[in-house]
């Protein structure tokens, strides 16, 4: 068939095509180098606990982005997985003396199971209803975190022992702890990267782009969405578990709906559906909170203003705009 060529092809700005893809790969390589370089040297330039916090939130945001950016599902309840896993890991380490890695795995298993339940109930609904169901279920989890005997109520779990890695690496040594967190982050980030670039990720993107079409091609879209939800919840749980070991406490803040809001903020600021965006977004938010902590509750105002400015100036988020500007399709 011969469709006539339209000289006025809309939106044609060489975003894709072989040239754009080669440029994209080169830029991605630059970002990888920057990220790995940062992760390796950061504890010598910045306060290590602060960098560990950055990495935990960055992983949380990347996990969240898997859902909102690559599947098109807006969850407003991800604090339940982050906070829930933090409690489970904290309790396992404190009460049972479980070592750190099995402790994190327990948190991950918990958030996977919780993700399955929440996801199964929520994916039947679309858009804002989906978000509201996830929020409602997360509030139930928050309620349990407040009421259950083992969570420490208002105080949360305090004095969680960091323990020894593989029995001999003492995590009470800051640098040991740091490189352990860095490893957890890198592994989590690589898993997410692989999911995005897998046959499964390809179907997720199809669902995000046009769900009825994916359905009409024979994909059972609900099942794919549920699986994406569980994966995202699991990795969010890993982030929460790790954070509880770093700070040696698990608190209601981790499970509060504000935390669900914060992770949305991080992802949007950095760039929805980008690979590195959530990392950048998490760094911006955590850094603002840290450096502005002197001004008390005004932090929220500054973060809010930053957010509004970003939404107005860079609709696609920092990394999203950068990708657009450099004419590459994925960063």
């Amino acid at each position: 068939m011969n469709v006539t060529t339209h000289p006025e092809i809309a939106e044609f700005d060489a975003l894709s095509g072989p040239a754009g893809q080669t440029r994209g790969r080169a830029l991605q390589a630059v970002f990888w180098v920057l990220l790995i370089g940062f992760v390796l040297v950061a504890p010598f330039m910045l306060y290590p606990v602060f960098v560990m916090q950055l990495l935990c939130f960055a992983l949380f945001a990347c996990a969240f982005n898997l859902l909102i950016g690559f599947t098109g599902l807006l969850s407003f309840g991800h604090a339940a997985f982050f906070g829930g896993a933090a409690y489970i890991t904290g309790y396992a380490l404190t009460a049972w003396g479980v070592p750190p890695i099995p402790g994190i795995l327990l948190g991950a298993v918990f958030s996977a199971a919780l993700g399955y339940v929440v996801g199964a109930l929520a994916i039947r609904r679309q858009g804002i209803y989906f978000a509201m169901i996830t929020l409602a279920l997360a509030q139930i989890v928050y309620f349990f975190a407040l009421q259950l005997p083992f969570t420490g109520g208002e105080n949360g779990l305090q004095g969680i022992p960091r323990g020894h890695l593989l029995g001999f690496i003492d995590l009470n040594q800051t640098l040991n702890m740091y490189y352990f967190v860095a490893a957890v982050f890198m592994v989590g980030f690589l898993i997410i990267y692989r999911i995005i670039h897998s046959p499964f990720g390809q179907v997720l993107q199809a669902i995000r782009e046009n769900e009825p079409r994916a359905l009409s091609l024979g994909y059972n879209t609900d099942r794919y969405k549920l699986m994406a939800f569980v994966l995202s919840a699991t990795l969010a749980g890993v982030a929460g578990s790790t954070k509880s070991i770093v700070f040696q406490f698990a608190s209601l803040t981790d499970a509060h709906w504000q935390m669900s809001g914060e992770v949305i903020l991080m992802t949007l600021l950095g760039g929805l559906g980008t690979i590195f965006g959530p990392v950048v977004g998490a760094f911006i938010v955590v850094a603002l909170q840290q450096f502005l902590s002197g001004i008390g509750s005004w932090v929220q105002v500054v973060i809010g203003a930053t957010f509004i400015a970003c939404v107005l100036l860079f609709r696609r988020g920092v990394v999203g705009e950068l990708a657009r500007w450099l004419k590459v399709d994925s960063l």
Partner: protein
Amino acid sequence: MTDTILETQDLQISFGGFMAVKNVNLKIARGTIHAIIGPNGAGKTTVFNLLTKFHTPTGGRILYNGTDITNWKPAEIANHGIVRSFQISAVFPHLTAVENVRLALQRRLGVSYHFWRSKKVLQSLDEEAIARLDQVGLKEFAHLHAVELPYGRKRALEIATTLALEPELMLLDEPTQGMGTEDVGSVTDLIRKVSKGRTIIMVEHNLGVVSKLADTITVLNRGEVLAEGPYEVVSKDPAVMEAYMGVSAEEAEA
């Protein structure tokens, strides 16, 4: 063996009391092109949604190759050889043309749930996907994002993707809507070309296209079948002419 590939019996659906489709009885003969026409809001898209299970009928039955598929799910329908297109062009805009087609081919590799594998495994499908694109004249655009294609080519991409599933029964919802006359001509040729060896049901406003392609025409009006038969018969039916007053200009143009 029956000659009827798809049959509906008293198919109906009501949206909160409004009967969008009323007692529709269709018999689609295997290997033919069957057009469904009718004024705006007649219920054509709704019939498609019922046939492909995007809506559940509030009454009636749907038989496909003699099997009752009334309570099947959309993905199941697709896996049994009924694939639809949409009234509003249905491509995956931020995937490349070749990735669009590959998504149709991917399921048979059985790796679609494999989140731990690299999508490089899908490259084994590239050759076939590009051949499919070539079939609709899109080979040179294989690595462009679908969003960057002009409208006519998006529709062609959609047809290439649908064809990649080798559907036994293909449902096309207004494949030429919004196209210039030249694109309409090439899409018409394309549909004729791909109709070999399969059955097509198409909703189409452009009566020129319908008269060229369709073996049988069903006219819907207000959710009901108004007339049915070959173009020569249906186009002379007074009831049809009345219902179609508004679009007679289109007929003249085509």
